């Protein structure tokens, strides 16, 4: 008996380019840039000042049963994205057995602002001001827990903190939970909130772009730290059909690997193994891949290494024919949310037969010589989209989204 096939039937997005599937997808295709000087805290002690922050997000809109003011910002984004995804999938609370709904979320930092607040008091010696509920607000697993609390979901609840590849890890685990019959519906995604810890770290590594985020450009100078959340509704193709739900895409498979080489410097061998494993699991030939959503942070090393890895898996000739783009040029690097947002992008590329551009791509780099969909979105047949994500710790994750053939 063949294993169930897994469909994406709902998308919720909280990003620096706006909220919700329709707005975000439109702005990505139009090549808007959501990067601006940091507003949430003072960067005057840094020599870089750009950030990608979420604007005009009102958590009250999305919380119906719990108090948005009693949770951290990443959890607010996550509940917002979850609410939008369920609405998008036309799933109302009466339609499902809440005990059979799983939540799987990824993150880099959890609720970093809570540990920052802890430190503010700690450093100033005001220990008595440290929140009694620090331990209830800070640990990263609360993000998934708060989603389940808000919606009353009682199925598996899993938090996967695998840094900047966490969103893809969540997709992979959601896929496995459904295939194993452990849930009827999975909310899978990622969330992170803008953090001075993250900003300080990347600035200290010299990895933050001073002016523009220009993935794959010869003059690229770095990434831009960001924030946001994405949640995808996953269910079996059969269940989606039975309830007449439109399917954006089907998850074909995934690949996970570890470099075991360096904590912060990527190794193309590990990335290539993840892509290859994903192709094998999805039973897709490299020639069948229509689009790659790159990790594409905009740092000199990442983009060069990722290009190398793609060539290693696809071969030079095929690699040059596959459009590959980085939406991080527009929304920055949203950390644990990044590959979840990009999973939504891959699903939408398959559903709409359009791929978003890499903006600010002006000067070709001889070491990055693939087709990066420079500056203009494209309308092309998209049968298979591959989503790449790489993380500190040497963790690599590629997930394949493909057209659901028999609608």
């Amino acid at each position, binding site marked *: 008996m063949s294993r169930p096939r897994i469909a994406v039937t709902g998308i919720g997005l909280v990003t620096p380019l706006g909220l919700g599937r329709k707005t975000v997808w439109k702005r990505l295709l139009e090549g808007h840039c959501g990067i601006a000087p940091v507003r949430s805290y003072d960067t005057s002690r840094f020599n870089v000042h750009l950030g990608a922050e979420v604007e005009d997000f009102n958590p009250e809109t999305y919380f119906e049963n719990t108090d948005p003011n009693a949770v951290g910002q990443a959890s607010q984004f996550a509940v917002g994205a979850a609410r939008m995804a369920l609405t998008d999938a036309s799933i109302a609370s009466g339609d499902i057995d809440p*005990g059979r709904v799983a939540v799987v979320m990824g993150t880099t930092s959890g609720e970093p602002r809570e540990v920052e607040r*802890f430190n503010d008091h700690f450093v100033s010696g005001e220990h008595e001001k440290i929140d*009694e509920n620090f331990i209830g607000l800070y640990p990263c697993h609360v993000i998934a827990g708060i989603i389940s609390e808000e919606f009353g*979901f009682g199925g598996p609840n899993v*938090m996967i903190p695998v840094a900047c590849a966490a969103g893809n890890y969540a997709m992979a685990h959601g896929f496995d939970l459904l295939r194993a019959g452990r849930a009827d519906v999975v909310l899978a995604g990622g969330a992170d909130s803008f953090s001075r810890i993250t900003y300080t770290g990347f600035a200290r590594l010299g990895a933050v772009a001073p002016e523009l985020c220009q993935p794959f450009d010869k003059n690229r100078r770095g990434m831009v730290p960001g924030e946001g959340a994405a949640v995808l509704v996953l269910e079996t193709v059969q269940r989606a059909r039975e309830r007449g739900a439109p399917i954006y895409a089907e998850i074909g498979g995934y690949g996970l690997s570890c470099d075991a080489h360096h*904590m912060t410097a990527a190794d193309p061998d590990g990335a290539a193994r993840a892509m290859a494993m994903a192709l094998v699991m999805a039973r897709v030939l490299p020639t069948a891949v229509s689009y790659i959503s790159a990790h594409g942070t905009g740092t000199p090393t990442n983009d060069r290494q990722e290009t190398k890895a793609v060539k290693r898996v696809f071969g030079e000739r095929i690699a040059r024919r596959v459009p590959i783009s980085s939406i991080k040029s527009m929304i920055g690097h949203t950390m644990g949310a990044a590959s979840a947002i990009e999973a939504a992008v891959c699903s939408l590329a398959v559903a709409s037969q359009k791929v978003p551009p890499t903006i600010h791509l002006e000067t070709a780099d001889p070491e990055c010589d693939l087709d990066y969909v420079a500056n203009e979105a494209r309308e092309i047949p998209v049968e298979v989209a591959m989503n790449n994500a790489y993380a500190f*710790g040497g963790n690599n994750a590629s997930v394949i989204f493909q057209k659901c053939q028999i609608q």
Partner: protein
Amino acid sequence: MSSRRRVVVTGMGLVSTLGFSPRSVHENLVRGLDGFGPIQLFDTEQLSVRTAGEIAFEAEEHLGTGRNLRPLDRTARLVIAAAARTLDSSGLAEVEIGSQLVGLVLGSMFGSVHSIAAFDRRALIAGPSYAKPLQFANSVINAAAGQTAIWHGLKGINSTIAGGSLAGLSALGYATDLVRDGRIDTVLAGGGEELCNESFFGFLKAGRLAGSRNGAPARSVPFDADRNGFALAEGAALCSLEAEETARGRGAEVLAEILGHGNAFDASRGREAASAAAAIARGGAAALADAGLNAEEIDLLSLSGNGSPEGDRHEALGLAEIFGERLAEIPCLVVKAGLGESLGASGGFQTVMLIEAARRGSIPGIPGLKRLGVQIPLKTLSTGPRHLSPWGDRPRLGLIHALGLDGGTSSLVVAIHPPSNSGSLAGEQAS
């Protein structure tokens, strides 16, 4: 489901306050020892609770002096040491690991909140340009899993699972499915957590540590009527999981088989006892169904009980829904009686020590237990060890349950195999 592969445990390794091997921890638990003492790692002068389960851990003794330990924080050091012992115990250290694509799934609540906070504090005090890049690399929650992969050359699937005190057990379940589904043949799984001032301070402020409320003397005795919180602790405990054919192919000894697992969530997040118990029952039922077993077939339990007034009661209520009256008869291992609440590491300890205790034929007791708390019908619990009847003709079936700190629940079902050479084990039997 018949196409799924069988998953076996071929090695176990740990670092703990009560020893650095499952055997020594078992001996110490059977003797009624605990691992709690005055905290040395950080200043406790201003704090109302000053004891915890801190390991006397000299990294060089475990990791050698030949390699640079400076990039590794305490969490990573504990996990690397446990991984080394697991690879030794399974015999995987002998095979060429790089070519085998061994994976690692680590359960951890915080990774290292100490590394994260220390990185931030230095930038706050000295300015962002003085922040330490090495510390930043360790500020991601998956840092210990990444550092362990680098240290041991583990190039297979590498993941970190959070979830508070159920992280380690949840990681074992996640890893089991990866092997079952053919994603990977060999994976180390379990948990690791360090003791540090940030988490200690946080739990103290929240009133969750024994002795942190109302000036009452600390009493972290699990399931006892007068328990008033847990003793925070640290450690790491891992199992090597392999596809059965991989293990057989290399002639590895099978210690146990993982038959199934299940997770569920209590949407009241621990606030309502009925909802908490229902979630435990739902997760446990899912694990039993996954294992193809009935509750009546379970011989042994390994429990999450840590001395929390609410948590221990919820666990007992949930298990009563699964096992009914028979709950009063099933022998229960409660490792946190001696090892404390080591958060992400706990599920690893609960699993490793159940397998070890069953194979050695005695389940340690709960020292200091005077009388069971209200709504806790765990009548097999007592202060001293409980000797198991001789092995029959089948493995012993155990259910391991871990309760999160705020709504999560995870269960894992194992079939524990008798020692291949029972004679020598009996000879070593602790008493």
